[in-house]
């Protein structure tokens, strides 16, 4: 029987909106502990240099300086996904972020002053700032800690995947298109800069960290490994987090550095990045070159895709190197395709290293793929909507890579945006010859039910109801601004029949909360939601039997509403708080507590990267209309039509927030955002020249949720967080190309690139 939902599906504001909007939220920046010192980090002056010596003696003499450390003062392990990243660098600097020394002082100003007194002798060397150059025999080995697993000394990681008979499909193809796409560095630009406060107690040897990590339990493990201490001696508390977007998936050197300063001084130490430092030293979206060759048969069916990707890994390996996990999914499984051959490698350079970023490689992949689909349609003389609909994924499909589409809204998403955007009848000209209009389509596939990339993709919940009828959800998952606390509270309100204000979510303390792999892969509502629903089920069993006993009825089938348990049969009712009190204070003297661990049905992929890696999959399509000013090259995004298979809308308000925020990140990726580098240095480490778009650049966003009710998801819901950003740049690029009748192979599509392309076109004509 389908129960009518009362809370789920309602536009309920984020539960912490009030504290956030009123400035009462406590961010890492607001924390002040008794006796706290301020840490600051000295970074290399040169992206590639031999460090001949570091002299900290003058810094140590500065009054107010308590401690200065360099690599020589610490006994630690390397960090990073490949353990190829020293926390403090010794002997050489390999990228502009490199941490050479750190200071702890009584004030921030003293700490900064002390950095200036540290004397470093550099022997500058020629760096390698191009991944192709790094692959040449003559290139030096950039990272000294690699295992030598690969054929070239500068390969950090490699991924190979294939399905189907490539050669046969090539032969069968009517048209084949090959293109090289270039993707830029984009940075998260979180509103709150990176921060950490570490407090080491040298009596009991325990380390307390106030950290904004997205993955507290993996972080605890990584930190312990780095510092050579026990994971459980580290307690991670998350203050309010001012932006994650994937940037806080990796642990970065400043975090163990802060811990080391606290361990050395026995006092709490805080490190907060300046905005400039944030631009320079926080992670980025991985830049890459994608070579894509794809074919289509005479009827418009996709035949094969052959992909070679070179990713600029930077000097050290972060989670960013593993983005091909996701990239290959789109190439192998977005739209039906008979054969796929995928090769990707991450190559060390002396550039800054990437991290994870909302979409995890997928915006890059989708840009290349959807651009080529437009070109294939042109070759065939087929319309661009038609070719997509013809090849769209379907419910019940098991893809070449082994993804199971138990539900699939791909076609419906495409149909929706095609219709709503009036795709076939859109305007082609602006108000005069100067302005050209175009429309572009793109769709996307992303994990929608977690991603099993760690041994467990699960989440634990402990649920408690107190004698006053209030509920506390202790969840392994955490809140990084996306609204998971609110959605979890809504689920509890729905199931237990209590008001939202009586529900508390505890999710910030690793000493308290049960295991969860962390916030990533759009997984939290799905995995933590299912975990919570499991705990509710268990707790209800206890409450039901007590209530039945109290009411003297046999049947323990209760509905929960208005803070009461209501018998399904007799209609008799009893207050929830009363049942809890009776449970606690009389026989059986039991707590109204239940714990549940949810592990999604997904599988770890095999060595060939095949397997059903997620509990479910999300689909989306966008149709975007642009107007290009041929005098200036400016692209104005007019309307964005987005349809997304969200499984089930849990909260339209929060969903809308994810859609709009994601899309604006996508528009920035498409048109304006790029961290510019020259010879290893970042040229625009500020909001002035890093062109993040503003409220006044926001186009009309028309959102149409598509509900496919996945049986795996809580109430049928799928993950939604990353999807809205993924197809945006692709659709915008397609629209610009449609407007101007030329090709754009590179992001961002800046006014200058547009004008240059128009100029080249004019010259070719002549």
């Amino acid at each position, binding site marked *: 029987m389908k129960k009518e939902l009362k809370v789920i599906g309602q536009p309920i504001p984020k539960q912490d909106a009030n504290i956030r909007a009123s400035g009462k939220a406590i961010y890492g920046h607001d924390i002040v502990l008794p006796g706290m010192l301020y840490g600051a980090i000295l970074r290399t002056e040169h992206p590639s240099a031999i460090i001949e010596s570091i002299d900290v003696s003058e810094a140590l003499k500065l009054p107010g300086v308590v401690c200065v450390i360099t690599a020589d003062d610490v006994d630690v392990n390397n960090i990073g996904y490949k353990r190829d990243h020293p926390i403090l660098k010794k002997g050489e600097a390999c990228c502009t972020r490199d941490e050479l020394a750190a200071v702890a002082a009584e004030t921030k100003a003293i700490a900064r002053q002390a950095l200036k007194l540290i004397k470093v002798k550099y022997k500058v060397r020629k760096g390698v700032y191009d991944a192709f150059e790094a692959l040449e025999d003559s290139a030096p080995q950039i990272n000294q800690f690699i295992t030598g697993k690969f054929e070239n000394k500068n390969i950090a990681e490699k991924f190979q995947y294939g399905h189907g008979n490539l050669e046969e499909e090539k032969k069968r193809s009517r048209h084949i298109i090959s293109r090289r796409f270039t993707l830029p560095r984009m940075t998260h630009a979180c509103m709150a800069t990176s921060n950490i406060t570490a407090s080491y107690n040298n009596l009991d040897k325990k380390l307390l960290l106030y950290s904004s990590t997205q993955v507290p339990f993996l972080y605890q493990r990584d930190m312990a490994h780095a510092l050579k201490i026990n994971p459980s001696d580290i307690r991670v508390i998350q203050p309010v987090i001012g932006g994650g977007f994937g940037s806080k998936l990796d642990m970065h050197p400043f975090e163990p550095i802060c811990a080391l300063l606290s361990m050395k001084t026995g006092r709490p130490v805080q490190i907060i990045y300046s905005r400039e430092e944030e631009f320079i030293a926080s992670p980025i979206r991985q830049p890459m070159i994608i070579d894509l060759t794809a074919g289509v048969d005479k009827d418009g069916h996709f035949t094969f895709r052959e992909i070679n990707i070179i990713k600029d890994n930077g000097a050290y390996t972060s989670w960013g190197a593993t983005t091909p996990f996701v990239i290959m999914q789109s190439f192998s499984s977005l739209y039906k395709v008979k054969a796929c051959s995928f090769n990707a490698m991450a190559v060390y350079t002396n550039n800054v290293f990437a991290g994870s970023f909302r979409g995890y490689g997928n915006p890059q992949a989708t840009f290349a793929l959807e651009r080529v689909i437009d070109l294939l349609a042109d070759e065939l003389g087929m319309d661009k909507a038609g070719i997509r609909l013809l090849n769209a994924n379907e419910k019940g499909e098991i893809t070449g890579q082994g993804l199971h589409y138990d539900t699939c809204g791909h076609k419906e998403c495409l149909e929706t945006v095609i219709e709503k955007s009036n795709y076939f009848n859109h305007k082609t000209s602006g108000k005069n010859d100067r302005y050209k209009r175009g429309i572009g389509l793109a769709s996307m596939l992303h994990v929608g039910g977690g991603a099993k990339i760690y041994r467990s993709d699960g989440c634990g919940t402990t649920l408690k109801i107190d004698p006053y009828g209030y509920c506390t959800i202790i969840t392994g998952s955490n809140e990084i601004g996306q609204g998971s606390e609110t959605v979890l509270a809504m689920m509890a309100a729905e199931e237990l029949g209590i008001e939202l204000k009586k529900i508390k979510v505890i999710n910030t303390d690793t000493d308290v909360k049960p295991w969860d792999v962390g916030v990533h892969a759009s997984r939290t509502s799905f995995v933590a939601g299912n975990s919570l629903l499991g705990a509710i089920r268990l707790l209800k069993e206890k409450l039901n039997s007590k209530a039945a006993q109290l009411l003297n009825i046999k049947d323990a089938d209760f509905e929960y509403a208005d803070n009461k348990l209501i018998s399904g049969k007799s209609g008799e009712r009893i207050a929830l708080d009363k049942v809890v009190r009776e449970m606690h204070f009389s026989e059986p003297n039991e707590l109204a507590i239940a714990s549940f661990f949810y592990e999604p049905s997904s599988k770890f992929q095999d060595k060939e990267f095949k397997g059903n890696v997620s509990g479910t999959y999300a689909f989306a399509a966008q149709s975007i209309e642009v107007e290009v000013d041929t*005098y200036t090259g*400016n692209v104005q995004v007019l309307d964005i039509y987005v349809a997304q298979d969200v499984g089930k809308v849990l909260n339209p308000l929060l969903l809308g927030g994810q859609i709009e925020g994601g899309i604006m990140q996508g528009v920035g990726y498409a048109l*304006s955002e790029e961290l510019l580098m020259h010879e290893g240095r970042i040229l625009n480490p500020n909001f*002035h020249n890093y062109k993040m778009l*503003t409220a*006044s650049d926001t186009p009309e966003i028309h959102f149409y949720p598509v509900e496919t009710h996945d049986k795996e998801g809580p109430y049928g819901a799928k993950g939604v967080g990353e999807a809205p950003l993924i197809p945006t740049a692709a659709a915008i690029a397609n629209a610009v190309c449609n407007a101007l009748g030329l090709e754009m192979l590179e992001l961002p599509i800046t*006014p200058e690139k547009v*004008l240059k392309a128009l*100029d080249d076109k004019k010259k070719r004509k002549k």
Partner: protein
Amino acid sequence: MNFEIISPTTTDELLVAIEKCQNRHFRFGAGCTDLLMELKKNPADDLTVINLAQVVDDRLTNLTKTSKLYRLGSMFTAGRIVVNDELKTHFPVLHESAHNLASTQIRQVATVGGNLCTASPSGDIACALVALGARCEMLNTNGKSRSVAVTDFFTGPRKTVLKSNEVLYGISVPLNNKETAKIYSRFIKIGTRRSMECSVVSLACHIQTDAKGVILAAGVAIGASAPTIRLAKDACSSLIGKTFKKITRKEKEEFAATVLSYASPITDIRATAWYRKEVLFNISKSIFE
């Protein structure tokens, strides 16, 4: 960053403060939207900031009108230009330049005087004022004032004719021609975003025509295209006597080429010189479209 602040409350006190600072490293602070950024980049420890924001003086902060001109006190803010209907009616180019500056928040404190004295080649209000043929009035510590055309106010990037004992007091904008029946007045700002953007190229134009559409006066200035904002004098004079609506394609292009001859743009991280020239040519043409 450590500096001393003097906050005079009258113009007399202000002049005394300037006098006192003659042997010191000092700067004026108006809205401080440029000053703070600059000090952050180049911190100075021995600096005194003379804060203009507390001075109570109508001539410094307000807008007045005479039979010949409008006079804006140098402390008049971009935000106040935006909401002033008279300025909007008579000098749309000034209105638009202020309206496109930074963001609502910054416009509330950013001043006309600051925009001029910063002497940035990409100053928006300054560019409009050059097109409008405005004049700068400077007051020295003896209480004497002198004035120069805005065009001559700038001597280089971040350099002006202001002497160390002078403060910019006000800016006067001549009224439109009596015979003017129609004005074509626009500020064209080129950048990536619609707000919080510094001009990559800008063009200010203020063209007045009589009832028949014959051009009586024309002011065209370009920003972010040369070491200082420049008045495209020859381009302006080439328009006089022509009928605005009847300007031919050839004339448009000649006009654009003349404007371009005033440009000597650089390549920096925001755009190449090629782009700046290309766009400047295009937007110059666009005035007549």
